[in-house]
């Protein structure tokens, strides 16, 4: 069974802090994704990566960056956290070839005070 693990379930940070959200998958998936989930807006793609050190912007990349130094790990970075980044963050992974389902982690509920 695919396992996508996000390092924290709940996180509270202050405005201006640099915040790291970590995600690890154990299925050797090429693709990894970061979404934020907000009521009424569904899931919106922040960034994705299709290989080590490769990254692509999603629909709402502003205020975020990512890092993928190893195939199994994909980090989301909030350079200077702001209150409008309070949200649920979901990590997902998938194989690249063909049309593949994405597999999700449990999510990190991040509150910026």
């Amino acid at each position, binding site marked *: 069974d695919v396992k996508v693990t996000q390092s924290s379930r709940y996180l509270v940070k202050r405005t201006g802090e640099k915040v790291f959200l970590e995600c690890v998958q154990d299925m050797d998936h090429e*693709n990894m*994704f970061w*979404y934020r989930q907000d009521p*009424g*807006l*569904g*899931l*919106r*793609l922040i960034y*994705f990566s*299709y290989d080590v050190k490769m990254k*692509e912007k*999603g629909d709402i990349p502003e205020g975020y960056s990512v890092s993928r130094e190893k195939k199994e790990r994909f980090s989301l970075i909030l350079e200077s956290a702001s209150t409008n980044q309070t949200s649920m963050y*979901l990590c*997902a992974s*998938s*194989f*690249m070839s063909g*049309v*593949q*389902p*994405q*597999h*999700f*982690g*449990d*999510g990190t509920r991040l509150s910026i005070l």
Partner: protein
Amino acid sequence: AQRVTQPEKLLSVFKGAPVELKCNYSYSGSPELFWYVQYSRQRLQLLLRHISRESIKGFTADLNKGETSFHLKKPFAQEEDSAMYYCALSVGSFNKFYFGSGTKLNVKP
């Protein structure tokens, strides 16, 4: 532009009633569509995908290219079906997904 629309934020039905969760998409290519479900306090999980044409937990979904729809149906709703449901469209070679805004299904006893 690719877009997925789920017009209902909330759908309430009684146990045993039929349920249909609507999903419409906008895409110029050949669509690859999925339904995901998120039960309370659980992770988002795949419910079904249109190319497999299988029925999961009694749910089915048919792709209608003429109406650009992929509605999710179940003939007899159960209380355990209460959850958030998301329709998703897969686009491009990187398997990028576009999600709808979700429909919360509430099945009343």
